[in-house]
C-alpha cells in the first residue's frame, strides 16, 4: 500500500501528545513565518519544525527531505521570476539575452529569499502537524472547537472511505495495467476515464451499503467522539513557550535586517 502522511502520524510517538500544544506550536510557526520581515525568523521556524518532525516525531530523514523538496521546487521557480522581474534598488547582477536586459536588483533578491524562507517555514509547520497528528485526533479537536457535529461526522465518514475507495482504485488500476490499459497515451486517457467512472459508481454503491449497515446498527444521528484526555507534560509546555518566545524575539531583533 502507499505510504500516506497519515500513516506516519499514526505511528508517530507525538500522536499521544496533547493536540492543543501541537496546534499552538504550528499556529505560532505559521503566523511568525508569514509576518516576519526578514528571512531569519522563517528559517529558524523551519529548522525547529524540521528538528521536531525528524527527532521528536521520528520521521525518516530521507522521506522528510523528499517531502520538503516538492513544495520547495515550486517556491524556487516562483522566486526566480521574482528575482528578475521585481523590485527596485541597485543592480547586483545582470545578463543580456536576445537583446533583453535582465537585472537582479537588491529588493528583488530580498523578496525572493523571503518568499523561499516563508514557504519553507510554512510547509515545515504543516508537515509537522500532518506527521504528528492523525486525522482521528483532529476530529476531537474539531469537536471541542464546537464545529457542528454534521460536519465532523461527514468528515469522519469521508476520511474512512477515502482508504476503502483508494484500495478499489488501486486494484482497478492494476487490473487495467495488466491488460495493457496504459500502453500509450490514448489508451491511458481512455482507461483513466473508465477508472473514474467505475470509481464513481462504486462510491455510490458503497454509500448505499453504508446506509444499510449504519441503519442496521441503530444509527440515530450520533457517531462516537472520544475526547481523549492527554495531559500536557511540563516538558512540552516549557519547550513550546521557549519556542514561541524565541520566534517573537528573533522576529523583533531582525525586523530591519535584509541580505543586501
Amino acid at each position, binding site marked *: 500500500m502507499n505510504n500516506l502522511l497519515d500513516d506516519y502520524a499514526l505511528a508517530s510517538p507525538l500522536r499521544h501528545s496533547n493536540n492543543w500544544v501541537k496546534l499552538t506550536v504550528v499556529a505560532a510557526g505559521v503566523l511568525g513565518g508569514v509576518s516576519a520581515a526578514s528571512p531569519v525568523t522563517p528559517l529558524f521556524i523551519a529548522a525547529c519544525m524540521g528538528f521536531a518532525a525528524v527527532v521528536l516525531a521520528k520521521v525518516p530523514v530521507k522521506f522528510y527531505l523528499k517531502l520538503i523538496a516538492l513544495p520547495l521546487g515550486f517556491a524556487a521557480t516562483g522566486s526566480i521570476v521574482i528575482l528578475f522581474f521585481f523590485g527596485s534598488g541597485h543592480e547586483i547582477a545582470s545578463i543580456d539575452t536576445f537583446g533583453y536586459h535582465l537585472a537582479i536588483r537588491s529588493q528583488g533578491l530580498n523578496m525572493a529569499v523571503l518568499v523561499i524562507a516563508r514557504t519553507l517555514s510554512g510547509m515545515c509547520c504543516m508537515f509537522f502537524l500532518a506527521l504528528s497528528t492523525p486525522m482521528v485526533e483532529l476530529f476531537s479537536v474539531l469537536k471541542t472547537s464546537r464545529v457542528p457535529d454534521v460536519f465532523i461526522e461527514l468528515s469522519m465518514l469521508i476520511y474512512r472511505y477515502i482508504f476503502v475507495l483508494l484500495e478499489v482504485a488501486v486494484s482497478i488500476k492494476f487490473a487495467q495495467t495488466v491488460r495493457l490499459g496504459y500502453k500509450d497515451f490514448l489508451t491511458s486517457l481512455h482507461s483513466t476515464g473508465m477508472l473514474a467512472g467505475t470509481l464513481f459508481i462504486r462510491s455510490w454503491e458503497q454509500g448505499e451499503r453504508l446506509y444499510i449497515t449504519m441503519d*442496521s*446498527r441503530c444509527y440515530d444521528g450520533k457517531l462516537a467522539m472520544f475526547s481523549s484526555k492527554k495531559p500536557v507534560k511540563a516538558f512540552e509546555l516549557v519547550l513550546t513557550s521557549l519556542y514561541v518566545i524565541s520566534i517573537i524575539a528573533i522576529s523583533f531583533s531582525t525586523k530591519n535586517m535584509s541580505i543586501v
Partner: protein
Amino acid sequence: MIILKTQDLKYAYPDGTMALDGIDIEIEKGKRIAFVGPNGSGKSTLFLLLNGTLKPRQGEVLFQGRSIKYDAKSLREVRRQIGIVFQNSDDQLFAPTVYHDVAFGPVNLGLPEEKVERCVNHTLKYFGLTGLRDKPPHHLSGGQKKKVAIAGVFAMEPEVIILDEPLSNLDPAGASEIVELLNELKHFGKTIIISTHDVDLASRWADVVYVLNGGKVYNTGHPSRIFSDRILMENTKLKLPTIVETFREFEARGIADGHAPMTLLDLVDSVEGPYISVRCAVAEFDIPKGQRVGLFIREGTIVAVPYTQQEAAGLALCDAGAGDEVLIEGVRGSLTSGTGRIHVVRIPRVMEGGSKNVDIGDLQALVDGATFDRVGAMGTSAKVTAAKAGIHSDFEVDVIQSAMLSALRGLDCLVLASGGMAELVKQRVDERNSNGCRNIQCSIEKI
C-alpha cells in the same frame, strides 16, 4: 423457545424477480443455525428481512413471538436485538478508529459517555482487541477487521447475531479464530445465524441447517441428516463435506459403518470397532487355533497376548508359536496403546477477573506435577493465562475435538478452559461416552 420465526415470507426485487418465495423458518433461542445454498438463493436478502431493513411483500417476521412493526421506533429495537455482521467488513467499519467503531452502537443507544467507554473497553478486552484500540480500520488485516465488526455488533448486546459469510476472504488461522469466537458467543446464550457455502464448516459447527434454493427453504434439519444426502446436495449445487465423502469411500470398502460422520472425531469412531475384523499380529506366546487373545499395539506392531479384558480381542485362526505371525479373526475393540485422559482446568472468564485471578504458580505446579502429553487452551482468558504461565498450548482451535482425538491415541491432555467452557468439555466427552464409543476419562478442576 422460538426466538425468530417467519411465516410465508415473500420478497421481490424491484425488477420483479422473486428473491424469496414463501420462506418459513423457526429458530430456537441459543442454537447455531447455518443457512447454506448456492449464490443467489436468497440468503442475504433473507437476513436483511430478518432485521427489518427490507420489508416483505407478503408474510411476516416474528421476533420473540411478536410480528415486526416497520415504524422507526420498533425497528430500532429489532435492530438492537438482531445484529448483523455483513460479509464485507469495509461496509460495516465506517468509523475512523476501532474504538469509535465499537462505540458506534452503544452511543446510538443513548448510553452516557462513561458507560460507553466502559462497555467498549470491556468488549475490546473480551475480543482481544485492546491493542488495536486506536488503529484505523485500513491498518487492520482481514481477520482483525472481521473481529472488530463482530465486536461492534456484540457491544449492543443483541439476542441474535447474524453473520453473512463470516469466513469469506479469511486465511485458515483467521477463519478458525472466528469459528472459536462464534462458539464462545453461543456460550453466552446468543443465537447465532450464519450463511455459508462452506459445507465443512456448516456440518461440524451448526445445530440446525437450512438449505435455501431458488428463494425457498429446500430442506432443513440436523447437519448429519442434510449433509449425508448426496441427492439433496447435488440438487442444490452443494458438495458433500470432505468428512462425509471420505466416510462414503471407507464405507464402500467395508472399513467404516454407521451414520455419516460430521466431525473428524465421528469419522475416527466410525472406523474403530469390528470393521477390520481380521488382523495380523505377532504372537507373544504359543497360541493354539481358536484361542481368544488380547491385542495391543507395541511400537507400531500389533501383538497378541493372553486374553485379559483388553480393549481389543479376537480369536486365533491358526496355530502359532511364540514370535510367529498369526491371523486373528473377529477382532473387536480398538487397537491402541490405551486411552488417555482429559483433565480440564477451569480458568475464570475475563469478566470474572481472567488470568489475574489465577495463581500462576499453582498452575505451573499442576503442569509440572502430572505429565500431560498435550495441552489445549480454550477461550480468551485461558489463552492469556497459558501464555502468562509459559505453558505451550498444542491446540487453541477446535480444542475439544483435538483433545478427544489425542486421548484416543493414548495421550493425556490438559485443557485450560475459560469459565463455562470447562463444563462444556466435560459435557461433550460424556455425550460421546454415552454413545457407546470407547470411554475417555474426563475430570474438571477449578483454580
